[in-house]
């Protein structure tokens, strides 16, 4: 799990290379975000290494998405800075994207009335140079880039397993496919770092497994992944490192095993209302301790939340 790839190619066809030393890709330095009197993110510092998968967990309202928005320039942080490859990222989403950080959204934000392919093609915008005059007079550069954009985008669709959806309107895709389309769109930006905001929310176990596998393949392209997720099982089996954010501050940072057994994390989650893994990989001393006291876990298997119910059944089966 410590394999780090290098090389400029971010293309899906590129192979997975290993052996390079771990190096800092993105550094968040004392990032603070305040809304009026409320401090949503407080002095968060975080390093993301090349090619690693970093999990970001924390109870609801811990500031995870706000932190994401600070990283991607959607919110200019009240103080602190974000560096990518040693360069300060300007707080403009577009420039952050061009620099190589792309993201998906917690609530899917596809361009609903565009086809799947067009959605991905939009993300090629900052990787192409055609200007208005090229386009108006259909100059060679325009023709060349159009063909290229179309092909590259199609390959990204295929990479996430949506090769057959090219001409379908994104609003007509099944929920899971929409999530994957969002990832394809983010990948088409050729990012160095991919930020996934709850990529498995609302997915069934099958889809979750596929997502896990997809993220592993993305890492295989030498793209670092920062993922927010409530599904602990997913996080702990996927990530190289995990950071736990509570009330806008970093509580714990470490390997999945360390974080999983950290009493502070467990305590933080007692107050939380989110689902907990009921079957962690290391059952002897894990968050599973908390099961009796967590109200969520006392819900019957087929409770109002069918997704939760499904996940739980899968856990039972695994156990």
């Amino acid at each position, binding site marked *: 799990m410590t394999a780090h790839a290098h090389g400029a190619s971010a293309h899906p066809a590129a192979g997975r290379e290993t052996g390079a030393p771990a190096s800092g890709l993105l550094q968040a330095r004392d990032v603070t975000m305040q809304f009026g009197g409320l401090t949503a993110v407080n002095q968060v510092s975080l390093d993301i290494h090349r090619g690693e998968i970093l999990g970001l967990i924390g109870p609801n309202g811990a500031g995870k998405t706000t932190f994401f928005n600070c990283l991607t320039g959607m919110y200019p942080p009240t103080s602190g800075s974000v560096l990518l490859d040693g360069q300060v990222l300007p707080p403009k989403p577009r420039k952050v994207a061009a620099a190589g950080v792309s993201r998906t959204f917690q609530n899917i934000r596809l361009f609903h009335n565009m086809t799947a392919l067009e959605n991905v093609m939009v*993300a090629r*915008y900052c990787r192409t140079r055609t200007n208005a005059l090229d386009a108006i007079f259909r100059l060679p550069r325009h023709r060349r880039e159009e063909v290229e954009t179309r092909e590259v985008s199609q390959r990204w669709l295929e990479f996430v397993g949506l090769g057959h959806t090219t*001409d379908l*309107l994104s609003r007509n895709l099944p929920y899971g496919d929409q999530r994957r389309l969002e990832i394809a769109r983010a990948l088409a930006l050729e990012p160095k770092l991919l930020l996934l905001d709850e990529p498995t929310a609302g997915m069934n176990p099958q889809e979750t497994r596929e997502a896990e596998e997809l993220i592993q393949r993305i890492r295989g392209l030498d793209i670092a992944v920062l993922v927010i997720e409530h599904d602990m099982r997913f996080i702990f089996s996927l990530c190289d490192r995990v950071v736990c954010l509570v009330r806008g501050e970093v509580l714990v940072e470490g390997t999945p095993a360390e974080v999983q057994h950290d009493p502070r994390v467990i305590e933080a989650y007692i107050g939380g209302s989110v689902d907990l893994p009921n079957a962690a990989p290391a059952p002897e001393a894990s968050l599973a301790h908390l099961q009796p006291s967590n109200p969520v876990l006392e819900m019957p298997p087929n409770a109002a939340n069918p997704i939760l119910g499904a996940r739980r059944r899968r856990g039972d089966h695994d156990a």
Partner: protein
Amino acid sequence: MNRPAFLASFERFAAPGRLVALVGTALLLAAPMLPWAYRPALDDMTFWFAPSPLQWCGLALTVVLLACLVLGWVVRPQGRRSLGRRLNFNRGARAAAIALLAFVAVVLVASALELAGLVALEPGGWLALAGAMLAASGVLTLPRGEEPTLRTLRSPAWLQILGIVLALAFVLFVAAYGLDLDDPGAFFSFGVWAGVVVWVAAQVGLLGWLSTAAGQNRSVLVLSAFVVAFVFPFTQNGSDANMSIAAGVLIFAATAMGLNIVVGLAGLLDLGYIAFLGAGAFTAAVLSESAFATIGWSPPFPIVVLISGCVSALLGLLIGSPTLRVSGDYLAIVTLAFGEIFRISMNNLDGTDGPNLTRGSNGIPAIPNLDFFGFDFGSPHDIFGITIGRFANYYWLLLLVMGLIILVFTNLNRSRIGRGWVAIREDERAAEAMGVNTFGLKLLAFAGGAFLAGVAGSVKAHVDVSVTPDQYIFLESAFLVAGIVLGGMGTVGGVLVGATVLKLLPEKLRFFEDYRLLTFGLLLVVMMRFRPEGLMPDERRQLEFHDDDEELADEVADDVAAHRVGSVVEGTSAEPGSGATAKGDHR
């Protein structure tokens, strides 16, 4: 709209219904041979056995009705690819009968209004009405069946091209003949007829086939459309009156097309767009050789066109760069305010309240005619024995401008820039997060649209001879927006239709003039309520306005796929093997 349930029960009586309809059709066939009115009204329907043109129009529709009735009976809709499914004759018959009823009713009412009243109608008219009513009531019993699927039919290229050419020939005929009608009643009736013909074609499935054909033969469509537009002045027998109107329509359409980039593609509502047309017109006027021009420099016209465009674009940047950061609703108001600032400024730059640039409210009159290499736009020329007057000359020039604007519009739309605009329209923040330069693209739309309006304005100055500030008021901006909304945002055809309707109807229906604005206002409200995507909508736009309509979404997706098949085929034939080589080159 769902069909009331009781209508479905009628279908038991389909056979007798068809008979009733056939009887009605027979009456309709006979009626044009009789006089319809006692005295001449519309285009004079007082003769025996000599149908007037409008009566011929009705007769043609009757023939279509008869054909649909018979074919709907003979051809059974068996199998998905059968003739009956492809072309739904029952729907066609229904549409044709209802269309005929509407047409006959309009003709009779118009005649009665122009004459003493209903007493002036002769038996022929009543016979036609009776026939139409019979036919219409008869066809109500016919099963409606499914939507015709002719649009998915793959037909040979020559047939498609023939279809396009015939359709455009029909458009030319309607335009030339309709414009020639001076009588408001006749014009209105003919307009209704043209409208219902299109509707019937849509119901049968022919329109779907045509749109597929047009999509797959875009260059043929464009070429023949321009040929038709080019030929139009020759149908006028040397009269310039309609060409003057046509020039006005073209200026309006060209401006609206520029606005369509801003509103239709980028989704920015600009309520002061007329200012950019005005800026172009004033620039051209000031730089013209008019004795009233305030700058003693008059460069050749092509340079003036460029300068006009640039001045407008500069104004667009000036107003856009600070305000495009504000959200959509605010932008609408800021642009409205800008339009007012422009008008007031043009009024004030008269030497007393500001530097003398525009001569204030007097404006700049006496702008001379253009002269290209000895071709004087102001004087008539004889081509093929037909006199081509002043406005016909300008009409051709405007056609050129229009072509340029359409080129800009469509090519931008089908590029990464166009995709960026759609993305901004759909979800601006997501677009920005995906690296789209939202501000830059919005500014480009704004400045680009302004540039095109400026170009149109520079020609307008010469066509109009004088430029005054009171031509560039808010209402004109509202009309431009309405032209786009009416036709369909984001489409070329829609804007052309919208512009024609908004400019032509008031010219031809003068008696209606007092109610023009009222109708216009109500039309906007009704359109937004019932068909916000316009008469000829862009498919994506249609979806935006009908967010919850899944059926429509599937249908559009099918269409997109169908078009894609066409364009892929086109693409490979144009650039053989380009796909394979590109892979290697751009890794």
